[in-house]
Structures are given as C-alpha cells and as structure tokens.
C-alpha cells in the first residue's frame, strides 16, 4: 500500500507542474498482462509458480471529459483471466481458473505529448473455478475429479505511466483517427475470501453416491499487481 500511495503522489505532482494537453473524446481498447502476486500462501495449492498469477485480458475505455489542468476521465470495463495449476501433496493435479469482471474510472494526464501518467480505481466480481484431478483413484466407477466454482467481490487501484505515438507526428503523416501506445503500472487488488467445498465428480451412472466431501478451507486472492499493456485509440 505504501508503494501505491507513493506512485499516486509522484504522479499527481508531475501532473500538477506539467503543461496541459488537449482533451479529446474517443474510444480505447487496451490489451494487458496483469500478473498478480497473491498474499495468501494457500495459492500454492493451485500454483507451481509460487504465488504469481498470470492474468491476461482487455479493457474498453472511453474518454469522456477533461478537467483541472487537463486531467482526462475514462470510465472503463475490463476482463482478466488466469489459469494456474498445482499438485498439492503429490496427490492430484489442481487447476484454478479465475475471471475478473470489473468496471472503474481512469484518470490520465499527458505531461509530454507522448508520455503521461494514469491512476485508476475499479471494482467488480471475481469468478473462481477450481478442479482437482486425483491421480490415484482406481477402480470402475471411481470418482476422480473435484470441482467447485465460487464468486466473490474485488476492488483495486492501479497507477502508472502511459506512452503513445506523438499526435503531432501522426497528424503530419495524415493519421488523425488512430493512435497506439503502451502502459506500465502497478497497484493492488483486494478480493473477498473464497471457500472451496468441492463436489466430487467422475465415475458413471452406477457409481455410489458421495455423501460428504471435505471443506478445503479458505483462500484469498488479494495481492499486488503489475500491469503491462497496449492501447489502441480510435478517434
């Protein structure tokens, strides 16, 4: 959180002393890789990569207004997906698929025609689906897969730098409807606890009913995030 606050303060300070940039209503599509470092060690049950979750996805942003020293406001919606795999206790192969669906606001200011800073906040839902394929289940009709899906809330913030092709240069070349850029940022996402009590599936129609399975406990996927992305702007 200290890092997040520092980034925010530094960004706003730079913005405050920078010359203004012209606001322009337009649509943006961003593609992003947003790796997350979860704080809960329980993720190791689903991840052989320690606590890193590789999340990938896209945002759709719309610049709608500018105000105070040409700070631009961009409401957005976004999606991030991640797939992690682990093998806890050497007894099964686990998979954790997460889908982040969120909406938020991005504040952006260009302090150079090609370089800017952004700060965003978002909130949404996290859909987490897990599987566990048991290696040692044997016998006809043996149930061999755990399965569960849970939904929880998420909220987060991100700050960083944005790059784009200089509008003046594009105009000189006759390109006025499109721009292309990139971004790099860091932040934090807070998520609700997820409690997995998976259903045991597999077998066939003759398999014995499963009356009780274990409550695996809780996992929390909150953590620090880094975002590297590409931005396609359409005017």
């Amino acid at each position: 959180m200290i890092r997040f606050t520092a980034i925010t303060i530094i960004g706003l300070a730079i913005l405050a002393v920078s010359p203004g940039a012209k606001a322009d209503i337009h649509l943006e599509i961003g593609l992003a890789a947003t790796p997350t470092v979860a704080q809960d060690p329980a993720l190791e049950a689903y991840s052989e990569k320690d606590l890193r979750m590789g999340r990938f996805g896209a945002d759709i942003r719309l610049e709608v207004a500018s105000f105070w020293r040409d700070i631009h406001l961009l409401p957005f919606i976004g999606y991030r997906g991640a797939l992690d795999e682990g093998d806890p206790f050497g007894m099964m192969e686990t998979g954790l698929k997460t889908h982040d669906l969120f909406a938020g606001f991005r504040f952006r200011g260009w302090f150079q025609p090609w370089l800017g800073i952004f700060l965003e906040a978002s909130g949404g839902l996290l859909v987490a689906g897990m599987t566990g394929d048991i290696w040692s289940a044997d016998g006809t009709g043996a149930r061999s897969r755990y399965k569960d899906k849970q939904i929880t809330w998420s909220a987060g913030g991100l700050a960083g730098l944005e790059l784009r092709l200089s509008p003046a240069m594009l105009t000189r070349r006759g390109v006025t409807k499109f721009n292309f850029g990139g971004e790099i940022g860091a932040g934090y996402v807070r998520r609700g606890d997820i409690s997995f009590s998976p259903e045991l599936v597999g077998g066939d129609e003759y398999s014995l009913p499963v009356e009780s399975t274990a409550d695996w406990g809780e996992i929390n996927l909150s953590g620090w995030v880094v975002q590297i992305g590409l931005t396609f702007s359409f005017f």
Partner: protein
Amino acid sequence: MRKTSIFYIFLLLWSATGCGVEGLYRDDINVRTTVRLKSGLAFLEGDPGRVLFVEMTQDGVKTKTVFEARLGEEIISMRGGPAPEQATELFIMTAPEDPRETTIDEALFRVDPLTGSTHEFAIGSVFGGMSFDPTQRYAVLYHQDSDATSTGGLFNPNEVGVIDLTALPATDNPRILSVGIGGRTIQGVHFMDELVVDGVTRQIVIFGADGMIKMIDLTDPLASTVSVKLVNDDDPRSVVPIKILERPGDDAHDPLIFALASQSQDIYAISLVAHPEGEPGFWATLNQYDGGANPSDIAVVEDDDIPLLVVASSSGSLVTVVDVDTADMFSITLLDSPTRILVREQEGSDEAVLYGDNLGRIYFLAVDDLATEKGSNLDDMIIPDGILESSVLDADRLMIIPYYDTGLALLDLNEREITRLTSQSGYDWTGATMQDGVFFLGQPGGDEIVSLDMVTGHPEPLILDESVQRLDLFPQVGMGFVLHPTATGRGTLFPLDLPTRENAIIVDGFWLEGFLDNKEVTE
C-alpha cells in the same frame, strides 16, 4: 523522471520473483500407522507427525486433527487402548526431534478423540513396547530390541514405566521402575488376574525375557519384584515365555503360574508363596513338568479339584496331561497333531477341545475323571474336507477353512455338527470378521465386501467403486467402513444390518479437510 522509472523497474523485479512458503503442500501424505478405535479410525501421518481422527456416524464421517507434534517434537508411535478390541483412547509417544533439543522431553500423551481431552505423562525415554492390563487400570511401558535403533542405543533395558490409568499425570504417575533382568530385553508382558498370595491380594504383571521371567506386583507401592530363572545362564536355547496362565490358590494349593516357553520341552510351574524370611512382598518356587514333544499350547483344567495341565504338541501326534500336584503325566496318542486348546463347558462339565491347522479331525477331551480314565475320555470328530485352518469364533463354535475344498465351514461344538456356509472359491475367509451372526470379508486389493449370514448361508457381495485397503466394523454405530487407497482419504460407509450397494455411500477427502487454512510448514 529517472527516479520514477527506477521505481517501476524495482516493482517489476519484485513481482517477478514471486513469494511463497517454501515446501508448503509439497510433501506426500504419508500414513505411518492406522488405529481402529471404537468410534472411528485414527491415522498417524507425516513427520514429525499429526493424528487425524475420522469419526464414524450413521450419516457420514467427522474429521478432525486430534494431536500434532509441537515445535521440536516428533511422534514416535501411536496405539489404541486401554481395551485392546474396544479401544476408546489414543496413546501417543513423543520424543525430541533432535538430540540437541533440550526443551522437549519424552512423553506419552493420552488422547480421547471424541472429547479432545489430552493428558501428558513424562516418561523419560522412548519405550518401544506398551501393554494394557485387562482391567484397564494399568499401562506398562517397556523397552524392546528395536529401541536400540530408535534411541541411538542409549536406553536401560531394565527400565519399565507403570501408568495408573485411573489417575492423572503426577510425579509418581507414571512410576519408572528398574526390573533387573540382567541385561536381557523384555520380550513380552503378561497380566495376571488378581491373585491372593499369603492373604495379600496382588495384581501381578509378568515380564518375559530370554531364560527368565520377572514378576511385579502393581498394587505394591514399593513394587516388590521377584525373578525366576527358567534356564541356566549358559543354556544356548532362547527360552522365552510365549503363553502364561494362572491358577488361583485354594486350601490345598498356593497360587500357581504356568509358562509355556519357546524352544523348551518343559512347562514351567511357579508357586507364589510368602517371603521365606518374613520380609514384605512375595516369593516364588519353580517346578518343571515334561511337556511332551514340542509343546505348542497349554490349558489348566480341574478334575475334581485336582489341577491338571493339558499340553498340546506340534509334533508326535499326542496330547499330554500332567497332574500338577504329583507331577505324574501321561500322553494320549492322536491321529494327528492339534496345536491349540480351547477349554469350554459341555453339558455341565469341562472339556478341552484340541484343534489346529492341517488336520483331519477335531479332538474332545473330557475333563471329568481324566486322571483315571485317561484315553477313554478322548473323542474325536472327522472333518469331511479336512482342516486347512481353524480358529475360535466363540466358546461354542470353530471356524474352519476346508483343506480339500474351498469356502468356509462352522463347527458347532455343542452339537458337534459341521455346517458348510459357502463353497465359493476365491475368498480367504481367515481375514473375515463376524458381527451379529454375519461374516464380513474385505480382501485388500479386492473390489467387494462379502457378507455371509451364518443362518441363511447366503453370501451377499457389496461391489465397491474402488479397491479395498482395509475393512473395519463399528458396531457401536452400526456401520462398516472400507478404506480405499485413494490418496485424498476416501472410504465407503455401509450399514452392518443392510450391507448392500443401495445403502452404501462414499465419504471423501479426510486429508483435504481445511488444508487451505493450514499454511504452516512443519519441517
């Protein structure tokens, strides 16, 4: 600008390293011991160890961790007790994980998994052996040969621990005693019923070692001990007591203890008497009887208040009877060599049933007038398909695996009638367990449980979805439980009165219960 860039690069590098708990969820689940209690199964898992208890109910199972080694401590062993077949508590022995660990001492934990009650007894060293007395009042700890490995060779083989299970841990509970067996290792513990020796009621426990037995009166706070040497020190044989019987004293006899020992043709009879010099405690005198050829079992019977010792032999096709008072003996010739003896009542009189494996007959030796009638008292019964294996089901029945056929037969000892329950091949009925007139058999590696009703003789298979690792019956809740080898911890639960597939359910995931909440690495 340069500082900002450096800051971002730092963030990226930090993220790229990832963070985690080294070793978390990495170790395989390693079940070291499984103990059946009256109400469920206890599993000792991992190193330094934790104990998971799976309680059986009619609706499913309840799983909880009932004991975990503390930091610096490891679990050495786990047993059920104090009633061997109806154990309700766990007895868990712990020791320092490292010899340099000074804050942890060797201890025995008594844990009731249902209530969570735990008592710690300081025992001072790791004992490989532990026995409970049949009255469930005492537990005795003793060293075995294997302790030389587990303790690094530093242990006193003469040391035993006596725990009063009716009392809480205290400075005098357990009592650590030195039994003085001359450097021998205790190879067995035998608890006697209460015996009155010279007017004093004594609870005697016998420690058997090579060539010697040691007796301790557990009720005596001074723990007076008596040694009896069975053979001379230079005897090369390994003469270790394997079966010990007692006969209470009466007007004509002092209390007697009989010992059958390995590699010995003799039966040892020990009279318990008052100390000859009037000192506190008791004393013992030794007699030896000829036990015939390779004695394999002994029984004490009473013929008109005359104690007789019946001795079965593993060779020679004979049974030997010894008059304890006069040491007179006689042998009765048989057609084969039954190795075991069951003493039971038949029509108001005692009889000794001689049975065993690889036989053609079962022998019945009437006790009344045995000393005078001798061989006339012997009767036998031909078993049509022979006996591959036989065992006592209860006082009135023997279970017989036929020699020349497959299946299972029951011998009614009252009627002396044999009933073939099944001829179905492919089942090893020696591993069967009987409950309320039904045999339950689950062969490890097999994929079914067979229940065989003794009245109807009808075998009913319960086909399972997975193979059998072990089968346990829990009559207290009316359920049977089949443990499967699936690593997550899985079993099939079925009612004992309706052991069919329609009534069976799968319970799963003992080892996964709450594991996401447990983020500590124990080593």
